[in-house]
């Protein structure tokens, strides 16, 4: 757990649109160790998925990475040729997309679709070897082996999502990115899928990057989290510490707006206003217009986003870390 498996440093990315540049990822740094679960949490449009896409360099054509580096096992990924990237994707990092269960090709059997990926990455394997591997993966995620011969429409949402996880595991990646893998599923199925992901992660010693807007799921799934707001990480640290002593007022607001079935029934606090448009240059603290307890400093337009140490491995944006 000592040397980081994935190191992201000062990563910035924007989308080039007709209305101007949309700064979706702003100067983001984090590390994920081998076997660790890292959570990315924030509202819709805060740049979570853009980070995931940039890690795999799957972002759309109008995006520009302006600075930063992504190192996997010490090897730089930015600037790699498409051919080299193909080897990184799925072999080293794989992803479970949001709504991925709907991305199965409806006219090809599930097993065949997984074998397609394996043929690409392990051309030397025989058909039987691949089939055996798929059956083993299916057992791991709680699917019957007969599912390999089924078409996507024959499966329920939960089964399709389990098969997607098996697909993501098919080329023995070291890192799995799970982008809202349970958002479209109901609570009981979500519970089963989360257990499956945890089990597989422990079994194979995988690193997990878990992206979600649901802070309760993040609390259960991760060791370390980063809270994103308007394209930046505003707080990052061990999950337990961030939940126990949130330092940024946005983190506080997210926690205060999450209902729970445990503990005293408390009055929840809503977070008024909307996140800023990422097209316009944001001067000063991006959260200050919505901050429930802004100080004089927050209104100062010249404050820069700056993560400061607020605890052991726990960092928060300087401006709003005083507002909680």
């Amino acid at each position: 757990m000592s040397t980081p498996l994935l190191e992201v440093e000062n990563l910035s990315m924007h989308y080039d649109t007709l209305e101007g540049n949309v700064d979706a990822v702003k100067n983001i740094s984090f590390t994920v160790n081998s076997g660790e679960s890292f959570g990315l949490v924030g509202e819709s449009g805060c740049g979570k998925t853009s980070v995931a896409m940039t890690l795999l360099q799957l972002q759309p054509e109008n995006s520009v990475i302006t600075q930063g580096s992504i190192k996997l096992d010490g090897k730089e990924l930015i600037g790699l040729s498409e051919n080299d990237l193909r080897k990184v994707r799925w072999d080293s990092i794989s992803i479970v997309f949001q709504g991925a269960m709907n991305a199965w090709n409806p006219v090809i059997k599930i097993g065949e679709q997984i074998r397609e990926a394996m043929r690409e990455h392990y051309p030397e394997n025989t058909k039987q070897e691949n089939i055996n591997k798929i059956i083993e993966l299916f057992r791991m995620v709680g699917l019957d082996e007969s599912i390999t011969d089924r078409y996507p429409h024959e499966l329920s949402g939960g089964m399709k999502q389990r098969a997607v996880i098996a697909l993501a595991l098919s080329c023995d990646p070291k890192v799995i990115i799970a982008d809202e893998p349970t958002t479209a599923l109901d609570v009981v199925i979500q519970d089963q899928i989360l257990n499956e992901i945890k089990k597989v992660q422990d079994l194979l010693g995988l690193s997990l990057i878990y992206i979600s807007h649901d802070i309760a799921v993040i609390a259960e799934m991760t060791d370390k989290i980063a809270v994103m707001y308007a394209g930046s990480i505003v707080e990052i640290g061990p999950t337990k510490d961030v939940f126990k002593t949130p330092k940024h007022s946005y983190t506080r607001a997210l926690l205060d707006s999450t209902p729970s079935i445990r503990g005293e029934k408390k009055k929840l606090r809503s977070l008024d206003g909307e996140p800023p448009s990422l097209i316009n240059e944001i001067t000063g603290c991006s959260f200050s217009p919505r901050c429930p307890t802004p100080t004089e400093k927050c209104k100062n337009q010249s404050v820069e986003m700056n993560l400061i140490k607020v605890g052991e491995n726990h960092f928060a944006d300087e401006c709003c870390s005083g507002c909680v």
Partner: protein
Amino acid sequence: MNVAQVVFSMENNILEVRNLVKHFEVSKSLLSRNKKIVKAVDGISFDIKAGETLGLVGQSGCGKTTTARSLCLLDPKTSGNVNFYNPETNSMESFDNIDEEGLKVFRRNIQMIFQDPYESLNPRWTIKDIIKEPLDIHNIGSLSEREEAVIEILRTVGLTPPENYLGRYPHEISGGQRQRVSIARTLVMKPKFVVCDEPTSMLDVSIRISIMDLMLNLAKELDVSYLYITHDLAVARYMCNRIAVMFNGKIVEIAETEELLQNPIHPYTKRLISSIPIPDPSFKRDQYQIDFDQLDNIISKNPDEKMVDVGGGHFIATHDTKEFFIDS
């Protein structure tokens, strides 16, 4: 008006449902003669008191939305008795076989809020047209009074200043604002009872609470009762006085919210509660497993079973629960 009068003795109920059944016929293939019946709602009973919010929770496909649609007369029920309080006659009435006039009385008092604020508002109408439509249909007030009512209700749901919203189209406002418009459209009729079908599940976490708070405040202010449908028990806890747990077309347990969460009795309720993630990393949830197929079996074997009161208005289904209980 052709409304059959059935006077119930219960005090202050706004809705009484007895053995509501909704079956759908599906044929296996075009040529097959065997009709298959899907028992989407299979004999459920509950009451809702004036000013109360009852939560209806359960997994997808358990019949929550079918119940809602049957109650609102959007899909005719197969059998059972449903009685609503009619403020115009001050009595409980069944709205079975009603004529057009009766239906208008019904719609004035019973409204629905839908899940998806992106699909439930007409994209070619302005906010003013959308909210004013029910007033036009029911011919309530003069033109200027209607416009005043629209402005008033926009203010009530927190879209201020109202003048800024009147001329806008749904695509020009955010998801949270759209759901506020849906709520405004519903409440402009001053209904007594509103069925809410997952009204916040499409919204972002931070906006969700403000919509939930708005609905709670309006319930008090305007004296509305809700049937609140959700799959999320944490949301149900925040919104509801009582919760009914539904599984495959049946209600298996119904109790006051805190009682249900603290002392769940039916294994399905326990399973549902144990599957809700807790926003506290130091808390480890119990792993509670049940055999869903067995539960389904037992429920379909006992079509006429009754709910029993185990004390304090806590009702559970009477079937033997040992068979599908998996000790973990």
